[in-house]
């Protein structure tokens, strides 16, 4: 008896594991997701129903959907949604076009391909805040290098991020510079995993390079393009670091995106309830757009 028990115990234990494997395997991941994502999300939703100041200096109270009603009447909210949209509409398409061009170039037999691919990743792997500080210096109308180039080319000086109309395109330029490499790498992976046969068949049929691209490469690249598009859309809508460091949403509120506005409301105006509601709106918007893109992909 005493000899058999040590043998049966592990058996019993392993049968428990066997029976519950489907719960046990994803368990750690689910737990992590719950603690790091679901809980804060629930907390954020609860917070968004309160009119709450960061400290006890003002009474906090339950306002239900009051914050959301205020948001819909808040000019500054609509401004921030518009700036966020402009930023995304400039940055993401440009990243896809340039990313595709670079990917096509790299897909051919370029000399020193390894080092070139490594170099092109540099903007992506540098620290965003450091990048933003350098760009802020380059944008400076008096001391910045960008105006120096413009003047050398015989063009006039520009105000760059100090100009209310130019600030969003200028910030989008930084985003394009920083994230085009990511798109290029994704698309390059897509290009390199394409089957050879359709290309061979098309070439035998006498297709021109132009036809080859539009009739073969482009359709085959669609899934990868949509993946890159979704990734960049979500990220661009949420952009915070470069905007906060370069302009803090200025001049005035000309570059204040929804994320930046929520940060202001929470950490400078100390209205945490309102900031939580703004972030819920951002979450809803980003999710809706991501789902929309996904539906578009499936419809194809």
């Amino acid at each position, binding site marked *: 008896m005493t000899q058999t028990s040590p043998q049966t115990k592990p058996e019993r234990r392993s049968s428990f594991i066997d029976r519950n494997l489907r719960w046990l395997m994803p368990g750690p991941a689910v737990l992590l997701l719950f603690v790091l994502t679901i809980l804060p999300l629930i907390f954020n939703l609860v917070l968004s129903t309160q009119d709450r100041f960061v400290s006890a200096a*003002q009474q906090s109270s339950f306002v239900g959907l009051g914050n959301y009603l205020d948001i819909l009447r808040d000019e500054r909210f609509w401004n921030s949604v518009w700036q966020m949209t402009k930023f995304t509409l400039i940055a993401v398409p440009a990243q896809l076009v340039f990313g595709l061009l670079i990917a096509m170039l790299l897909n051919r037999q370029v000399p020193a391909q390894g080092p070139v691919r490594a170099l092109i990743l540099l903007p992506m792997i540098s620290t965003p805040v450091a990048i933003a500080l350098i760009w802020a210096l380059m944008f400076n109308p008096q001391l910045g290098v960008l105006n120096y180039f413009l003047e050398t080319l015989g063009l006039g000086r520009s105000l760059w991020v100090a100009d209310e109309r130019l600030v969003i395109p200028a910030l989008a330029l930084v985003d394009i510079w920083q994230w085009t490499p990511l798109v290029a790498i994704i698309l390059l992976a897509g290009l390199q995993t394409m089957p050879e046969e359709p290309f061979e068949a098309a070439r035998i049929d006498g297709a021109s390079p132009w036809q080859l691209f539009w009739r073969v490469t482009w359709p085959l690249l669609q899934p990868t393009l949509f993946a890159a598009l979704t990734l960049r859309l979500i990220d661009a809508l949420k952009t915070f670091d470069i905007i906060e460091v370069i*302009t803090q949403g*200025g001049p005035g509120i000309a570059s204040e995106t929804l994320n930046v506005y929520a940060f202001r409301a929470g950490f400078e105006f100390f209205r945490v309830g309102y900031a939580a509601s703004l972030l819920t709106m951002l979450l809803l918007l980003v999710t809706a757009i991501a789902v929309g893109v996904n539906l578009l992909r499936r419809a194809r």
Partner: protein
Amino acid sequence: MKRMFGLGMAALLVGSLGLAQNFNWEQARGTQIRVLLNQHPWTTAITPFLPEFERLSGVRVVVETFPEAQFRNKVLVELASGTGALDAFMLTPNQEGNLYLKSGWLEPLSSYVSNPALTAPGFDQADFFPASIRAASIGGGLVGLPIQQETTMLFYRKDLFQKYNIAVPKTFAELEAAAKALHNRDGVAGIGLRGRGAAATSQLAPYLFGHGGDWLSPNRRSRFFDTEWVNALTFYSGLLRNYGPAGSTTMSWPEITSLFAQGKLAMFTDGSLFKSILDDPRTSTVADKVGYAAFPAGPTGKRTPVAITWALSMSKASKNKTATWLFMQWATNKQNQLRVLLADVPASRKSAWNSAEYKAKDKTPEWSAINLEQLEYANPVWNPPVVAVGEVRDILGRAIVTAINGGNVRDALTRAATQTNTVLDKER
């Protein structure tokens, strides 16, 4: 001279030994305190001397330093969490003081100062400038020990004023005339002022007071639609739009001081603290050409600089209050205030400015004289006196940007007043 200095040091040493017998600096020996500091010239100047305090008291001091924006966020988050992990921190009482005190985060200090068991005999509160003590006292009680006391000052390029035979401006009208005369001469803009929204409000304040305006009415409503406000903002934004550097709506003090240091500005008005950047040949190309003048007088005929005070405060949740208080009084004692003044930080103790050592080493006596004179009448209320300072500064900042961009000043201020009153309604 050297021998005299040595003798003086010996006397000081004997003196402090004598004091040490009366006062127990080691009453919190073995504890550790955590201090959050802003990346500020005062921090740079005091940090090398911290081991001296650790030897004196046996208290270990852990210092964390952050750039201003992150620093302010970090202090707020730590205080709001209420864990007591933070003991002392730098504070601009006029910015966060009201909020922090009402939230119950600041330890009132008056009872510490009056307790001879806790405060060394040489502390001498009367040695601080009255303006500094006023700024660091909220609701009648002391909530911080002043560590630096700056006033708004006019910085100008001596060489350009001489070359074009322009007198140093004494009034707002002369200021505008000088800006006009020097604009686009020798590659400089006529005048630099902060234009970046919220950050500009504290530097608009002296122009507001010069036009006879004020923040709030006695029944705590915004006065932004007063004629004085319209005149002040019209003048301020006009200077920047007509004679300012391109892109001034993105500029706060780092941009303004670096433009001046690069020789691209004829003059600017801002805190006297920034002298240290401008007259240092390592950071300035115009180090030997900087002139200092008192803040000019407005239409009211009075000079109306503001006085900005940084203080060292204690967290109410601190678990090592005795050790923290020992550190605070040491950091602001006469010797350390002299040390920071010698490093170009405008000290908040009279004894530092009046000391023979500072007078002997002072490279810019005119700067010292102006700073001291202005402290007699400078206004310490450089921020709107509300709890939600950040939000009201932001509201006003947007009006400033609109004005600089040529928008209608009266409309912008009326909008700002309405928004500010909404914020004030919540504070009732």
